[in-house]
């Protein structure tokens, strides 16, 4: 593998982690969605680059799915849902931005330490990719626990899935089954989520998950 191949792949995967950090401190839903679209865009570029470097044409399909579906269709659809529900200002963080960023840095350090230590045998690109992918996954998780709003939790989940796609494409020669299934599962997941959001709206007049807690079975 030539030097430049490695550098570009490294750059793209690193940007993905950076954008995950950007997502962490967005305090309005529209801007959060825009950042998520950028996240998916970088993912698409990264996957396409892997397809080129590994000479694996089937990865272009994954890249195309990431580009069309995750970077365009989903953000647009979520924009519309938000507009229809009139909730574009409602982001409530459970913890402050500073604390979330600190926790995020800790998680990235953790994933570097864990993944770089255990992957001595693998080739350098795969190692770096896995470490970055784990960071993205953990940052997505962090976002899901620090947000109360259902839409931003969904965005957190989707960026977590982006991390998984990064991991799967970084693992050289992994059978196509998995990529397609990941993309497919996102599709299904999105449909499910969409239905849920509408139903939640129908029933509660808010998408703040905390409002759901009132209906817990234990408090009857």
């Amino acid at each position, binding site marked *: 593998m030539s030097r430049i191949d490695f550098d570009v792949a490294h750059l793209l995967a690193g940007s993905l982690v950076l954008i995950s950090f950007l997502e962490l401190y967005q305090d309005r839903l529209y801007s959060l969605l825009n950042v998520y679209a950028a996240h998916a865009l970088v993912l698409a570029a990264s996957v396409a680059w892997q397809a080129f470097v590994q000479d694996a044409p089937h990865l272009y399909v994954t890249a195309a799915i990431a580009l069309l579906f995750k970077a365009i269709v989903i953000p647009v659809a979520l924009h519309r849902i938000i507009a229809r529900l009139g909730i574009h200002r409602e982001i409530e963080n459970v913890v402050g931005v500073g604390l979330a960023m600190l926790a995020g840095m800790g998680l990235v350090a953790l994933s570097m330490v864990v993944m770089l230590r255990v992957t001595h045998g693998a080739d350098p690109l795969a190692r770096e990719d896995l470490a970055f992918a784990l960071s993205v996954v953990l940052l997505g998780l962090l976002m899901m626990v620090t947000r109360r709003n259902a839409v931003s939790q969904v965005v957190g989940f989707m960026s977590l899935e982006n991390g998984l796609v990064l991991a799967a494409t970084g693992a050289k020669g992994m059978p196509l089954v*998995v990529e397609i299934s990941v993309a497919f599962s996102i599709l299904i997941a999105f449909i499910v989520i969409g239905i849920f959001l509408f139903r939640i709206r129908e029933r509660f007049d808010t998408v703040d998950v905390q409002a759901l807690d009132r209906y817990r079975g234990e408090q009857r």
Partner: protein
Amino acid sequence: MMTFDALTGVLLVPLAAAALLAMLPGYRVSARLNVVATTLTLVCAASLFFKRPQPGPYLLVDDLNATFIVLTTFVGFTTSIFSASYIGHELAIGRLTPPFVRFYHAMYQVLMFAMNLALVANNIGLMWVAIELATLTTVLMVGIYRTHEALEAAWKYFILGSVGIALALFGTVLVYMAARPVVGEGLDAMVWTVLVKRAGAFDPALLDVAFVFLLLGYGTKVGLAPLHAWLPDAHAEGPTPISAVLSGLLLNVALYALLRFKMLLAANAAALAPGPLMVTLGLVSLLFAAFMLYRRRDIKRMFAYSSIEHMGIITFAFGMGGPLANFAGLLHMTMHSLTKSAIFFAVGHIAQAKGTQRIADMGGLTETHPLLGWGLILGVVAIAGLPPLGIFMSEFLVVSSTFARAPLLAIILVAGLLVGLAGLFLRLNSIAFGEPRGPVGKPTASYAPMFAHLAIVLAAGVYMPPALVGWFQNIAGLLG
């Protein structure tokens, strides 16, 4: 695939039935078709005992998963009978409308397909896809009543289940990474039979990390504490047949995935021993759930916590490992599936007769509904682990094998079991005996599935045929 064999049958029958049921409008026809389809699947599954195809790159049938498949299809079959009368009642009182019932029946078969696929998958990627499909299907079914509680339960289940599934996928990618240098790129590096043969040469550090992710990921689906938060809500708010299938089957399927990866780690001498991790999670779940049993006010929620407790015991047993503990774990899993689904059959009809799931509104069931009341008592006696029923025997084996090897752990285990037992009986007393309370409706009950399950559990507790013992011993040996 070429000719029709039993393996294709196990997968294709539910799939075809799902397509058909999605198009059929009438409730009566679809409920019957649902039963017919599960019967056919059960017949196909049972024939796997006698004749099984060679393992391919995607599908595999061996002694271990043949047992799981037969258990799954059997409980799927009895639940479909229970479901016919249960859903009929829901339709009659207007809790479900015909379009939802149609959707429900189609989803039931998709769920059966997904679980069977997860069990026969020889490819760790395919197994992951199947478990993801099963999760999505059950999410949709849990939310089917569209009440506040049902939506909250489904949302919670969806989010936690997806996170679990995502972690499991990361673990799966890591297993592939570990296998790639040894097996080579491509399909073979995800085929379980290939992996387990050559696991000795894999990078142990990578395998360790992979297993931690898989344990957290699939462990969420097993309902192990502290990853269990979705389970009580999902059980309590969905239709009761789904509670029965969730508790009796889906938790097992996730556990089965864990066992496969445990076998992979066991094949590599330098990798970490998965046992202690599973033992810890199992004990934590058991203790946590046992104490949580006390303050339950909702009857389905209570039995959901009891499921967490028992999954804890099973995980503990498999974590201890060795022929005896594995044998006990397998037996306990089988007995728990049968008993817990029988309890949910009873609870479903009781809740319909009473028009509520609140324990406070139930009382004197043995007087007002003798068959349901005594059925429930029998089920709870079984699930609490009293002799002479099957769960007593499996719990006894778990405890005695632990005492021989780690007395301290056994003391914690016994303490948890006793706390759980007391909690269950405290509630049972007020539900089954005393002055009748609350409304007295007449349920359109089907008692056969419930008593069939309980009869098997009783029979297994009194006398286990040597052939069955030999079969379980054989699998326990495979699990290592």
